[in-house]
């Protein structure tokens, strides 16, 4: 019989580290990655030799990036694997590390997210199933259509949709790891260059470079290595799904998200309403509204209104994208999902400083990867 994560031994996030998400620079991918990993090791208080396995979520670096980086931490012989799931690559790396520790294959595992901008080759373009729009249906056109449909369906305005970006820029203005740290006003967001339909440039996430690292460990390892139990954050569920066939006209990413969120909440034994902090895949402003509703923390069509009254602010009912999300923290692809886990862990430890959501005890991280796949993690603060 298949068993959910909570039937296994507990898994904890014990270390987090980031290299700032930023525009493409001369910094090598090795330097980006080592910065994040060394920060995570220092945060956990463990040596590289204590790490049993490593998963690197990356989509753009080319073949075999990881050992050429990890060897500079002292080549220990540990198993190393690259995983790719488009935008959910980093989340998948975290999931594989969590599964190894849960099952006892490893006591301590490292998940890295790492990428530098490079031309993206989408494999499915060679699948031999063209449609009527092909390249015309770029991501921003796709999400603009979802925005147009949502606005029309619920009588929501373009300004209300843009408020997602306003909130996320405000959050990221307090985040030293964010790609966009300037707090743009609603007027600036709306007046920026138009991209497609209601979406302006500042409602589309920046794709830059960066790195994020998360170390997960078992109770055994925490005790054996003398790690801080108070700063450890428990992983309650780790859920990965792929798109099915939905009703004509339904947005596949939203339906896939709805299913995966529900499954992850059920596996964690938590109610969506109990979540304090959530990091959503807000590659485009409209996505956050769709996914908030898919999570079930507000009725269909009401996310824009609840956002406007501050429900999703830091300090509100549930803090959505306190890091700044993809829109402001940035979306370097591989690092993004790992960075979400860093943010949730920081919030649940109460170490998020100026962007701390008061009393954060339960958090969720969500990424969608084109194709589509969806990966969700739910974490809780130490008791």
């Amino acid at each position, binding site marked *: 019989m298949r068993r959910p994560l909570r039937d296994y031994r507990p898994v904890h996030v014990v270390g987090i580290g980031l290299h700032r998400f930023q525009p493409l620079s001369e910094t090598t991918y090795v330097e980006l990655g080592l910065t994040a990993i060394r920060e995570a090791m220092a945060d956990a208080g463990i040596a590289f030799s204590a790490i049993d396995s490593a998963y690197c979520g990356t989509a753009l670096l080319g073949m075999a990036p990881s050992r050429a980086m990890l060897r500079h931490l002292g080549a220990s012989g540990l198993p190393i694997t690259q995983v790719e799931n488009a935008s959910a690559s980093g989340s998948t790396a975290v999931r594989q590390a969590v599964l190894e520790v849960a099952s006892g294959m490893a006591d301590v595992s490292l998940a890295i997210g790492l990428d530098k901008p490079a031309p993206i080759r989408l494999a499915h373009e060679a699948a*031999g*199933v*063209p*449609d*009527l*729009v092909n*390249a*015309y*249906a*770029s991501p*921003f*056109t796709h999400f*603009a*259509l*979802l*925005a*147009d*449909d949502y606005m*029309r369906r619920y009588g929501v305005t373009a300004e209300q949709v843009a408020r997602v970006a306003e909130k996320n820029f405000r959050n990221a203005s307090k985040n030293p790891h964010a790609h966009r740290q300037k707090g743009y006003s609603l007027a600036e967001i709306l007046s920026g*260059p*138009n*991209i*497609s*339909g*209601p979406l302006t*440039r500042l409602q589309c996430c920046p794709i830059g470079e960066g790195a994020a690292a998360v170390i997960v460990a078992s109770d055994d390892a925490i005790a054996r290595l003398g790690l801080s139990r108070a700063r450890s954050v428990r992983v309650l569920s780790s859920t990965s799904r792929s798109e099915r*066939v939905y009703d*004509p*006209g339904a947005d596949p990413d939203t339906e896939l998200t709805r299913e995966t969120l529900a499954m992850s909440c059920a596996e964690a034994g938590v109610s969506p309403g109990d979540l304090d902090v959530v990091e959503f895949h807000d590659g485009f402003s409209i996505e956050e509204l769709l996914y908030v509703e898919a999570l079930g923390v507000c009725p269909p069509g009401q996310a824009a209104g609840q956002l406007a009254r501050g429900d999703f602010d830091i300090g509100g009912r549930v803090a959505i994208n306190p890091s700044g999300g993809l829109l402001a923290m940035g979306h370097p692809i591989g690092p993004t999902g790992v960075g979400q886990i860093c943010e949730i862990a920081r919030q649940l430890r109460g170490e998020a400083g100026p962007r701390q959501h008061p009393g954060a005890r339960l958090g969720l991280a969500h990424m969608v990867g084109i194709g589509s796949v969806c990966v969700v993690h739910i974490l809780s603060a130490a008791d």
Partner: protein
Amino acid sequence: MAGLFLEGEPNPALRGQECEGCGRVAFPPNPYGCEKCGAPAAMLVDRPLAGRGRIVAFVTTTHANRRDLSVPYTVASIALDDGPVIRAIMTDSTGESLAAGDAVETVLVERAADEGSTDRVLRFQKREAA
């Protein structure tokens, strides 16, 4: 785009598929198998879809992320009269004449192709009231 429609005036039909296993009607066609039930390609039979439907949503894109796309262009989600909801490019590149709910229909448009030749591509246009 060849292979996605059947020429025939005034409204070219779309080359859909119907699965003999589960009855799903889908567009675009594929040579591999049914996404709903996994039936092999041999069980996917041709099922022309009338080139008519209604606009569900539409947007005009003013920013090109590839050099081979000229802006502006307008893409719509269209609920076909025959069931599937598809996406297509509209003849009205600025979308100014369009509204959600509009009845639309397929039309073939000549487009410049390589070396001075032209090819015919499928677009949707607003359907004039009869």
